[in-house]
């Protein structure tokens, strides 16, 4: 366990240092003195960072008009991502349960649904997002947003096929066959391994879905990390006289990286406990 924890601490430190050094290679018009990473984190925690263009304070929470609060956008993106992950997991579980169930009717219903969702999933988030943007403009509902975040870029396809393989594998195990022969409930025996597998699977796809969520937020200009990146970094850099807000980018990217590493750590922790 110590080895896993130490590994993730090293990864976090290296990732943040890499990010900070990359961002520091961007020329600064004001020629401000560069802080070290530790000093930067300290300043960020104390709320002493300011934006380059209007000298607004960068904070996580707050409603001061001279400050820019990033917390709401981050929470919004994380919530969209989690809901999208949950949606694809539920859809995939329902489809696979129908395939492995005894009802022929459910199998016949599940087959075309699986095919359509799999085909939709083959389309990249950018293509699907832009097509929807043309049709509905920016008037997309939250449920629609969550649907395209979860379904596109092969995420649904990967989740469903991985789950099906696991179901096939576990249902052919000796203890399951034995339980079936004895007339015992199969569900009672497979519930624990399937739950563990599902949790690790959900945690495994979370980072990819977060990337999808950011793509969609940029296209539809919905509140979230994507639109935050667009308004503070991409739009100023695209030709206006404003400077890209490097500290905002570092702040947001730092939180995203920390959350992704935390999710991976939890996943590895569960797997470690399982093997033990």
């Amino acid at each position, binding site marked *: 366990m110590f080895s896993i924890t130490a590994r993730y601490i090293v990864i976090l430190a*290296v990732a943040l240092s890499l990010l900070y050094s990359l961002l520091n*290679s961007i020329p600064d018009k004001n020629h401000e003195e560069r802080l070290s990473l530790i000093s930067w984190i300290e300043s960020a925690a104390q709320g002493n960072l300011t934006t380059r263009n209007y000298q607004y304070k960068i904070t996580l929470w707050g409603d001061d008009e001279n400050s820019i609060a990033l917390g709401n956008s981050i929470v919004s993106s994380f919530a969209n991502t989690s809901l999208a992950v949950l949606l694809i997991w539920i859809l995939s579980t329902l489809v696979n349960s129908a395939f492995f169930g005894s009802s022929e009717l459910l199998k016949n219903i599940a087959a075309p649904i699986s095919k359509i969702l799999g085909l939709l999933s083959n389309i990249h*988030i950018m*293509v699907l997002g*832009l097509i929807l943007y043309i049709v509905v403009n920016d008037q997309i509902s939250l449920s629609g947003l969550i649907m395209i975040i979860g379904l596109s870029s092969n995420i649904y396809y990967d989740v469903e096929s991985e789950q099906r393989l696991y179901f096939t594998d576990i249902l052919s195990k000796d203890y399951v066959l034995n339980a079936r022969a004895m007339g015992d409930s199969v569900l009672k025996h497979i519930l624990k391994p399937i739950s563990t597998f599902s949790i690790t699977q959900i945690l495994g796809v979370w980072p990819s879905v977060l990337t999808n969520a950011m793509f969609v937020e940029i296209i539809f200009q919905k509140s979230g990390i994507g639109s935050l990146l667009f308004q503070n970094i991409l739009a100023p850099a695209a030709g206006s006289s404003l400077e890209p807000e490097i500290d905002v980018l570092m702040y947001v990217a730092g939180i995203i990286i920390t959350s992704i590493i935390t999710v991976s750590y939890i996943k590895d922790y569960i797997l470690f406990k399982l093997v033990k």
Partner: protein
Amino acid sequence: MNLVQLIFVIIILVLIIIPVITSTQLSPVVNSEGDLLRNLSISLSHPLGTDDYGEDIFHKICIAIFNNIKYALVALLSFLGIGIPLGVSLGFKERSTHFVYIRYFFQKKRYSILFFKSMQNMAAIIVYVLQSIPIIVAITIIVIMNQLNISQPGFRIYADMLFLGIFLSPKIAVALADRIEVLRTEEYLQAAKGLGISRFRLLTRHILWMESRGTITLQSMNLLIQAVMVEILLSYFQFGPEGISLGNMIYNDINILTRIFSSSGLINQLDLYQAMASFCLLLMFSISMRWLGLKAIELSE
């Protein structure tokens, strides 16, 4: 479904080859008197007609996809160049604790092995670090870095693609490492080792070529799709290349299509077909590249 996908693949390949045979430069269509032929409707000689500038849309699309593949190949170069060595290092990495290794190799005085083990651990850290940075954040950083550091706009897209390949390289590294881990226990590889086949030959010929070519092809196809999508994203925010590209075409088409879909008046059918052509191509490209990748896995198995 397979037949449709096969047709898509053939269409995409033909579209890429056309500019190579004809010309990668676009010149306006003129009549015998030298006048520009603007907004020509669909015909056999101009399958998608011409636009406001008298340019043949079909030829423009061919050049756009050719240019996009050119940019994507730069990304592929860094993707394979970094991803494969990382994957190989990760695949041969032992599962034991690092401290046990250090003690063992210092006692045995086998420093070369200690060096290789350290490289493997470093490769693992690089893969995890790159994996923890979401691609959209990486793209944002790369684009701003190149925008402010590279003065020649023509080179920026190549630099963007080079970095994109590096940031996406963990995908192939992890896939390859998983494959190698499975192969390590295979009997025929143990037998080959026993017969005295060199480690290099075993790695390149048996593991990478014979056993992992499907995985490498699938990952390469996914990278090509991703690189094309990134070019579109960059062009959407005006960070894209200056010449003809799918991203620039789609940026213009989005404006036309949004106008068409939001207006309640009469729709110009020619405008609609022309604006939708690049989207249809993108869809076909996305589906056919994925299919090609899966087919490669199937064939290699």
